[in-house]
């Protein structure tokens, strides 16, 4: 069990820490986004400077928020004079004298764009203009300076990006094949120069951590940068380029404008998940559109590794612990991830195959705490017997909708008593003990797999708990021999103990008590376990304490604590090798160039996953234990049967884990 309730000391410390952090972060975060910059007062956006050639033509694109009133209101293009702005052309049909036949204005209300085209340019056209909405020039306009020259070369204009607040943007840059292997970057123009935001060396600005992705496009030398959760602070002039800013290579200007949209805010960006429990990530999409692909991926500095999608894709380590619940009616898909460990901490991105769709990213933070839902998480049963899967819930979930479902790659199929297709199943809620019981009677081989117990509130998926059901189909039980030696040498009926035949039980403790009552053999085995368990645990604690003490004595001169020293060193070693191109692994080079979307991405996912796994394996012993724990969850075993079994599990699991990746 990871959700330990006896870790109150640690939990209290964590809460205190979290509280202090929250107290100080809250004002900081809100101060940053509470007051928008003055540019937010005017949501109409267009180029600041356009260049035209004599006798040539220019086309000016202006953006506006596509609200109902803006879509229907008058659009105009006017020329500034000393006192006012004289309309040149407007969507109500007016065209000023001198411009007839050479100026047009076209409105695209659905996209929120107006397009002004002026041809047969003369030097007299040089000046300041405005594109705007409404009947007067108050507020809703963008000032454009038109420069006319004889040519032949005119400066390149910045590409414009109009992004809704909290929305996402994708910016594409292409510098040709010559720069296929050169460093690519995006930087933001500031007073002191161009601040690097992201580059292909894996350097990412701290303000953009977890919400920016740089991916190579299909053609050589082309790349795109995607930013989510765009905030007021992100508006401004950017440069995307190859090489190094101010030294060599090429750059292109990108002008990003942020406007306040009408869509409701997409909830909180940070999700807290209790270790061992579950977290729900809600992703929003446009319900009127039809997507062939929706998926969730985990953000890395080099790409985004897909975790689950709507086509049934699922990498091995997520087997049984992640599910997608799609609700096309309100345009959300929720992803529930359970059996959380500290390795799940990070940024997650909701993605669709539509490039224009706003993408959301959420940060998942793992905290210590108590699980709401509890029960036996690994159950073994024999074919033909009856098994009860129990799920106890606290009072806070009393009014929630509770359910059991059978997990599969395509989702989690709810199991109810009214389910006629599966006659042996029954869901009943024991309100007195606040336990939801799923009875399988009789158990068949097909019933083997993962079962989820969960709660739902107002259509929102809440906490879940996963139970792994192992069904022995009369064949030899899939238990490792060491375990059998230790626990079941004198009690050959170990599987019997695991299957409480014809008995409804509410939790593991009750089950053990019941089992010891029913047979002498099993009571003998549990007495043995009761004696061996504490002795073994005490010995382990002593050995660990001695080892730590010894190690500290050795290391005292360094004045570095054991845990942090080890963790930091192993981490940084690996990162360095990865970042500065120590080309020791072909797979790693590929994973650095992970594509977003498309087939290539799928093929490289496994690589990124496995490199991450090896990276984790280098960490401290605590993580090893976590790893081993999750491995024991993934592998079919009966390790939670007795306290003695718990201490053998970590030693057993790692080789099995390696095999399952």
């Amino acid at each position, binding site marked *: 069990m990871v959700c330990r309730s006896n870790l109150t000391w640690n939990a209290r*410390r964590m809460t*205190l*820490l979290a509280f*202090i*952090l929250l*107290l*100080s*972060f809250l*004002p*900081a*975060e809100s*101060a*940053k986004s509470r*007051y*928008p*910059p*003055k540019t*937010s*007062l005017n949501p109409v956006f267009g180029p600041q400077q356009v260049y035209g050639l004599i006798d040539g033509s220019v086309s000016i694109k202006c953006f506006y928020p596509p*609200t*109902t*009133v803006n*879509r*229907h*209101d*008058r659009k105009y293009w006017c020329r500034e004079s000393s006192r006012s702005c004289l309309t040149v052309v407007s969507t109500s049909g007016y065209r000023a004298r001198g411009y007839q036949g050479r100026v047009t204005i076209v409105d695209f209300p659905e996209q929120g764009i107006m397009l002004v085209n002026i041809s047969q340019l003369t030097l007299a056209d040089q000046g300041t203009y405005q594109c705007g909405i409404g009947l007067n020039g*108050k507020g809703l306009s963008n000032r454009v300076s038109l420069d006319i020259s004889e040519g032949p070369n005119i400066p390149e204009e910045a590409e414009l990006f109009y992004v809704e607040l909290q929305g996402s943007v994708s910016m594409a840059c292409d510098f040709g094949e010559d720069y296929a292997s050169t460093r690519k970057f995006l930087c933001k123009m500031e007073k002191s120069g161009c601040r690097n935001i992201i580059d292909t060396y894996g350097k990412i600005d701290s303000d953009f951590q977890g919400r920016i992705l740089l991916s190579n496009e299909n053609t050589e030398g082309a790349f795109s940068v995607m930013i989510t959760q765009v905030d007021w*602070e992100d508006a401004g002039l950017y440069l995307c380029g190859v090489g190094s800013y101010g030294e060599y290579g090429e750059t292109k200007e990108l002008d990003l404008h942020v406007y306040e949209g009408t869509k409701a*805010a997409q*909830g*909180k960006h940070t999700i*807290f998940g209790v270790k061992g429990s579950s977290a729900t990530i809600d992703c929003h999409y446009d319900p009127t559109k039809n997507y062939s692909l929706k998926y969730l991926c985990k953000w890395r500095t080099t790409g985004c590794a897909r975790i689950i999608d709507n086509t049934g894709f699922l990498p091995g380590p997520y087997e049984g612990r992640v599910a997608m619940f799609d609700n096309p009616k309100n345009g959300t898909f929720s992803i529930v991830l359970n059996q959380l460990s500290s390795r799940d901490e990070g940024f997650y991105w909701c993605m669709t195959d539509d490039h224009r769709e706003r993408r959301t990213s959420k940060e998942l933070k793992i905290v210590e705490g108590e699980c709401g839902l509890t029960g036996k998480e690994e159950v073994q049963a024999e074919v033909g017997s009856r098994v009860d899967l129990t799920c106890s819930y606290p009072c*806070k979930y009393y009014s929630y909708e509770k359910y059991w479902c059978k997990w599969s790659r395509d989702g989690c199929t709810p199991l109810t008593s009214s389910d006629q297709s599966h006659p042996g199943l029954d869901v009943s809620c024991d309100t007195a003990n606040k336990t939801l019981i799923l009875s399988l009677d009789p158990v068949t081989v097909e019933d083997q797999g993962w079962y989820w117990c969960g709660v739902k509130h107002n259509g929102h998926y*809440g906490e879940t708990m996963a139970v792994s059901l192992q069904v022995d189909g009369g064949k030899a039980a899939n238990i490792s021999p060491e375990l059998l030696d230790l626990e079941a040498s004198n009690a050959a009926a170990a599987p019997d103990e695991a299957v409480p035949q014809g008995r409804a039980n509410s939790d593991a403790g009750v089950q053990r008590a019941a089992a010891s009552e029913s047979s002498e053999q099993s009571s003998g085995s549990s007495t043995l376990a009761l004696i061996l368990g504490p002795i073994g645990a005490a010995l382990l604690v002593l050995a660990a304490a001695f080892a730590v003490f010894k190690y500290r004595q050795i290391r005292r001169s360094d004045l570095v*604590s054991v845990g942090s020293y080890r963790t930091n060193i192993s981490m940084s070693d690996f990162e360095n090798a990865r970042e500065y191109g120590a080309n020791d692994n072909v797979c790693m080079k590929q994973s650095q160039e992970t594509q977003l979307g498309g087939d290539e991405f799928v093929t490289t996912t496994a690589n990124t996953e496995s490199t991450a796994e090896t990276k984790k394996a280098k960490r401290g012993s605590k993580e090893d234990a976590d790893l081993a724990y999750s491995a024991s969850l993934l592998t079919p075993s009966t390790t939670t049967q007795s306290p003695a079994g718990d201490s053998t599990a970590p030693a057993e699991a790692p080789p099995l884990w390696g095999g399952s990746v």
Partner: protein
Amino acid sequence: MKSSLPWVALAVSLGFVLVAGYQWDDGEERVLVNNKCKCVTVTSKFVPSKDNPEEEVLERNIRIIVPLKSRENISDPTSPLRTTFVYRMTELCKKCDPVEIELGGETYQAQQSNSCNEPETCYTYNRDKCYTTTFPFVYHGETKHIQAALTPTSCYAE
């Protein structure tokens, strides 16, 4: 070592506050109030002090557009012209947009001020709202009250 951990966290988070504070006063003008109902915007920015050029002071700019031709009741074109316009900073600075807060794993909407439910007197139209009025219409000697849009462009259905 262990007991110092919370203090380190506190120091780090204080650092964040200071960084956030630094980002705030980057010389850019910020919008404090944008009241479309009373046509008031309040912005502020840090400027060098006139007394001591090495010191920066916060300058607050209040822009009010007074709609002199508006009616007492903007939804009733027959009401008399408005002659008094009252602007109270405390009311203008009131935050009435709800914020989301998380309590025990649940997200709730919280109101930021306690007097947000009182109706606000507007001096001008809000572009995003549709204003209508009824007028008597005599047809075949029969008087009907017909609804008319005061702000047609804002009255289109989605």
